[in-house]
């Protein structure tokens, strides 16, 4: 979808840029809701325009929230809107739940082109439809120009837990096999390639995707999946460290087994970064009993998001709380968490 393709409805055209009044609760706010949000997000609970949505998810729920402040807001492979939908859908799904409802909170900066907002909102609607979730409530605020990066998005999601699902980091246990659902580092390097001051030409695109359908199929295999985690900020290394710490187990991975796209690997080499620490937005790390590994792999690979799924390591009872990697040369080293974000280095 491109900005050019979005033709904004008549009443919105009077203001090609977001003005303070769009968040003021008056006519401009109402027009935004009536002509942009309701048409995009459907005519369910949201269209009632009540103070809150009334839902009946039934049974135990999984509940998660995330706020997105990505810059730039359009990047190769996606934009902040679909990222915000997919990110929360994935967080909800990581507990073994079927994501059902989302809320959307927008903080807009005065001066944001309305056409851009339109494209972002439409792509959120498309991402929600693809994931099978309904956007049921929302909020919009406008901040003075210079007080935001154009747009910040918060999404909160509710999912209904599958029967018997007990998926959490503490359940990792020695003998578990560790699977990653595809190439790591795509999203972070896609963002890096368009970040101001660092632009480089590349074909790398973000992996932003909703994983709930794939995870549903993984759980349908009947495997007693112990842990699912989406390795976003901090990358694969942070997720593995968090799980090793939470379950007090050791994690041993084979560095050569970690799937990395060749272009991403090359870009990381040039910038002095390690793909293991780079963010993903459409990947899952699964800890499963060895007996179920093949079935889980097969289920993942049947989805476009999981075609490169592969086993990268196992859980051990040694070096508890730590992640170790077998290097290609056969020695073993510790994989620690980064302190802050990775910085491109000097030479």
């Amino acid at each position, binding site marked *: 979808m491109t900005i050019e393709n979005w033709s904004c409805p008549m009443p919105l055209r009077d203001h090609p840029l977001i003005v303070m009044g769009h968040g003021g609760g008056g006519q401009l706010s109402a027009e935004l809701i009536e002509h942009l949000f309701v048409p995009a997000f459907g005519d369910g609970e949201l269209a009632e325009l009540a103070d809150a949505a009334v839902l009946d998810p039934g049974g135990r729920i999984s509940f998660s929230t995330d706020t997105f402040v990505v810059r730039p807001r359009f990047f190769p492979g996606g934009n902040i809107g679909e990222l915000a939908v997919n990110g929360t859908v994935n967080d909800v799904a990581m507990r073994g739940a079927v994501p059902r409802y989302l809320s959307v909170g927008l903080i807009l900066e005065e001066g944001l082109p309305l056409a851009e907002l339109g494209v972002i909102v439409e792509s959120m609607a498309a991402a929600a439809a693809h994931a099978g979730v309904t956007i049921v409530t929302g909020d919009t605020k406008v901040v003075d120009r210079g007080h935001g990066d154009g747009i910040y998005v918060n999404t909160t999601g509710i999912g209904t837990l599958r029967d018997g699902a007990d998926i959490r980091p503490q359940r990792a246990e020695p003998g578990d096999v560790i699977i990653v659902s595809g190439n790591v580092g795509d999203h972070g390097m896609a963002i890096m390639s368009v970040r101001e*001051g*660092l632009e480089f030409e590349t074909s790398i695109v973000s992996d932003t995707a909703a994983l709930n359908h794939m995870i549903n199929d993984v759980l349908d295999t009947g495997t007693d999946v112990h842990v699912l985690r989406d390795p976003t900020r901090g990358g694969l290394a942070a997720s593995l460290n968090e799980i090793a710490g939470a379950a007090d187990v*050791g994690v*041993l991975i084979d560095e050569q087994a970690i799937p990395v796209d*060749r272009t991403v*690997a*090359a870009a990381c*080499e040039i*910038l*002095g970064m390690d793909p293991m620490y780079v963010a993903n937005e459409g990947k899952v790390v699964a800890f499963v009993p060895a007996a179920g590994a093949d079935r889980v792999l097969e289920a993942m690979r049947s989805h476009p998001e999981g075609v490169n799924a592969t086993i990268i390591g196992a859980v*051990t009872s*040694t*070096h508890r709380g*730590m992640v*170790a990697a077998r*290097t*290609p*040369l*056969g*020695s*073993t*080293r*510790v*994989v*620690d968490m980064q*302190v*802050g974000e990775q*910085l*491109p*280095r*000097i*030479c």
Partner: protein
Amino acid sequence: MKYLDEFRDPDLALRLIDDISRIATKRHVLMEVCGGQTHSIIRNGIDRLLPDEIEMVHGPGCPVCVTPLETIDKALAIASRDGVIFCSFGDMLRVPGSGRDLFSVKSAGGDVRIVYSPLDAVQVARDNPDRQVVFFGIGFETTAPANAMAVYQAKQEGLTNFSMLVSHVLVPPAMRAILDSPTNRVEAFLAAGHVCSVMGYEEYDPIAEQYGTPIVVTGFEPLDLLQGIKAAVLQLEEGRAEVENAYQRAVNRVGNVPAQDMVNDVFTTIDRNWRGIGMIPRSGWALADEYRSFDAAERFTVTDIDTVESPLCHAGEVLRGTLKPDECPAFGKECTPRTPLGATMVSAEGACAAYYLYGRFQELEATP
């Protein structure tokens, strides 16, 4: 990855390690000059795979580590000023000055930007004619040509709002300083391949000859490093002390002459203070007289700098190769990447950071 995977081949690497084990009949201490080489050695566990006879000590070739504290404090002061856009390579931002770093200046309202090339900083200057744009020009011979080009371009264009805070350092004088030290243990050097791709390696001949020390131009991938180590050990065993090129795919004897011309035009050689090591004669580059008006140190008067180095930090000994990072009493305790006492714990190329990041503060239990 083409041109990289070939130089990470495990079978060939193990064969080279076998060769080195066979050649080495006695103990040898080798220093890899460059921090990039240190990281590759530690990350790939090469030091653990080498025979006991070979000890690798880590050299001073981490540009952010040796940038004087006073210069960093000056950078922090300039970056804090209104109307200044301060541009830097990324790994300089976390390096501690006296009590703070560029990240904390940024969070306190300073306009600090990470750029990947000094030429990007020149562009920032073009785009912001009403602001003063300062680039932190540090590094060894490797980064000097691009930094020189940035100043050259700014002068050609008559950009009056661009300047550079220069703290360039040079490899050969540092090698001499290490060899001159009474506590020196280094018997052979792995010279930094990328420095030599700019400078060539003729300038190492007098050092090898005068000190009887083998110098092997070496790359950064596992096979490059092992090839360099093998060549150095072979020289030591045979009693030779020559300059040898084990990085022929990137380096030739004379180096990159146009790049050297650019550097010689813009910079002049001066005595330079190295953080943790001290003054080394004729070991740095500063802007030549014709380019002095682009010197940020002159454009911005910075007074009342009171440099305070942590008394617990032993970075100097680490940089001279007389102390291993994990032998420092503060390593992994008072000093971690999160609370660095010295620059060697921060930079991607710092030896202390390499040891910490790859877990040398905790012994891995044997894994099956």
